[in-house]
């Protein structure tokens, strides 16, 4: 198996590359991103690209990868401006699929990491979203619009390329010690926001299950769309109790405007799509991926509990992850210099 991973410097891409490195049947791992990786990698080849992946066709042709894992999709609108988001999500995916679908392309599998944001959150929603359901409200944020476009591209690609196994994974909000999602960030603050009078049913997925889900689709042929979310849901108030943080209410009216000064002051990085979730919540039905054979390690409450434990540890010892800095010369030396004695 020869694998191309996009978004190598993101949590998802980096962890998937680490997992792939451990597998003996994976000959080559090529990672692309716009910035340097932030985790140590042993044999993954890193190529820096621009955000729209314009050189991807050349990389695919040169490396003859048969599997593409596309994790470089921004699902949090505080991470990028509207334009950057559009470039990375929409144009990036377009170039990627163009490269993968070119005539003579060796690609036989595409795994794409989308988000439950495509379902939106509104009062008319079903309480459990299944994969075939569509959102009940018009998308209001750039990130939601771009993800819907990306999914449409992928559907077209799947129709046009029947010989390629296309897997679309929709992840709910991820909680974990090692990554900063809007909810993880909010729960790390001394006080946690809520919308006055609302206590929605929320659902998370543990970071280990995120990596597991991406790896499962990479290792097995599971074409189709799948929700990835832990079993169960719980009220937001209970999440805060488990994490041990007091809640501060935001106004139920004009919430987005009320939240804007907080965003400016960097007190709470709550994007508008997260505010919608704090009002109506969202639960996704995760049975289809389990029927396809995937097993979750963490239930919803265990995800929150594990996150709470990580927070307690971090409170005492600070950030335990040693900061890794990618240096091309050093990496190249260890990987390619004849002076280095390699075991394999």
């Amino acid at each position: 198996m020869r694998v191309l991973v996009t978004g190598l410097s993101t949590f998802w891409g980096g962890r998937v590359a680490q997992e792939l490195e451990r597998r003996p049947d994976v000959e080559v791992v090529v990672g692309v991103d716009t910035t340097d990786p932030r985790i140590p990698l042993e044999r993954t080849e890193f190529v820096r690209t621009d955000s729209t992946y314009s050189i991807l066709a050349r990389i695919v042709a040169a490396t003859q990868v048969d599997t593409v894992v596309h994790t470089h999709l921004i699902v949090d609108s505080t991470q990028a401006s509207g334009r950057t988001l559009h470039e990375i999500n929409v144009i990036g995916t377009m170039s990627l699929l163009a490269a993968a679908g070119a005539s003579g392309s060796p690609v036989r599998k595409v795994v794409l990491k989308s988000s439950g944001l495509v379902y939106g959150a509104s009062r008319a929603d079903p309480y459990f979203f299944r994969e075939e359901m569509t959102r009940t409200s018009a998308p209001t944020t750039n990130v939601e619009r771009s993800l819907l476009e990306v999914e449409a591209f992928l559907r077209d690609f799947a129709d046009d390329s029947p010989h390629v196994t296309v897997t679309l994974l929709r992840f709910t909000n991820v909680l974990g010690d090692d990554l900063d999602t809007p909810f993880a960030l909010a729960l790390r603050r001394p006080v946690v926001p809520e919308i006055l009078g609302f206590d929605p049913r929320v659902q998370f997925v543990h970071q280990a299950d995120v990596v597991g889900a991406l790896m499962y689709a990479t290792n097995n042929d599971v074409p189709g769309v799948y929700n990835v979310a832990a079993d169960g849901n719980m009220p937001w108030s209970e999440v805060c109790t488990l994490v041990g943080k007091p809640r501060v209410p935001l106004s139920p009216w004009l919430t987005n405007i009320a939240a804007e000064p907080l965003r400016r002051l960097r007190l709470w990085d709550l994007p508008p799509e997260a505010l919608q979730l704090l009002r109506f919540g969202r639960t996704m039905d995760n049975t289809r991926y389990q029927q396809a054979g995937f097993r979750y390690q963490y239930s919803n409450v265990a995800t929150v509990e594990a996150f709470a434990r990580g927070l307690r540890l971090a409170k005492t010892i600070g950030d335990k992850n040693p900061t890794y800095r990618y240096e091309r010369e050093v990496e190249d030396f260890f990987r390619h210099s004849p002076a280095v004695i390699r075991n394999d």
Partner: protein
Amino acid sequence: MLLGDDSGWLLRMADADRPKRPDISAVPGPDVDLVAEAEVLDQKGQLVAVPWRGRPDEPRVQGVRRSDVDAWGRSEHMRALTRRLYDPIYKHWHRVEWEHFDRLPTSGGALIVANHAGAIPPDAPAIMHGIETELHRKVYGLAENLFRSLPVVGTLWARGGGVAAHPDNAYRLLHDEGQLVLVFPEGAKATGKRFTERYQLHRFGRGGFVEIAMRAGVPVIPIAVVGAEEAMPIVFKSSRAAKMLGIPYFPVTANMLMMGPLGLVGYFPSKFRLRVLPPVHFDVAADQERYSRSRVMDESERIRQTVQEALYDMLRTRRSVWFG
């Protein structure tokens, strides 16, 4: 539970007067997994095993909930509190009486449909309270998703067993979970009608409730409710005020005229009589892609007729609005 572990450890420390590692093996099931998880993470700085197909399943990590709010937002604790507060009203104010209560199933899913009345309908809590206290089964009440967007009220509504009326929600509750689900197919048309139209049933929607029951393979159990119409009768309505506030109707009730603002919550002590009608089974296969429109409409209309006739029958024997 976590707190218990920590304090236990501290106590042991005090006893032995020297640091001692917590005994991980003594921690019950789910915790062991979490602890082990953390240690693997520490040593390698990486995540632990990713489950592949073919490998025996990893132990699932469970956790301990802190509230009893279920996946639908209902809290049994909250329901118990509501039942305690509502019980005097049920017993002494409306003096609710049931006929043919034994027609309600003790197990399995069923869709309960009833006629709806009163500006702020008192029939839903009466039915839910009666079934929960006497049959000891949960009842989920389907209602307009407008409730979900109301601060505080919406949360209390959900904790009390309210679920937004979405076909998939109803199907899950009935088919997957085998619960009792209460629905008022007339909807806001019935609660917003004036006192002069009392006990005149409106159209039962588009028969959606029949289709859901068919799809879920459960019976429909109609209930005829007498008394709710007189508990909070609407004297007149203002459609302009309703439009301005964005609500289905803006009623002026007799209660408000008599009690002022208290009339918003104060019901008249009308006598409630609830008659459970024979369950309606549909001899069609469950889980079909679609069901015949005409069949659905026929069944819906037939159920509406039986409820209407039962109401007329009960009104014929009712001597007094207040004493039954």
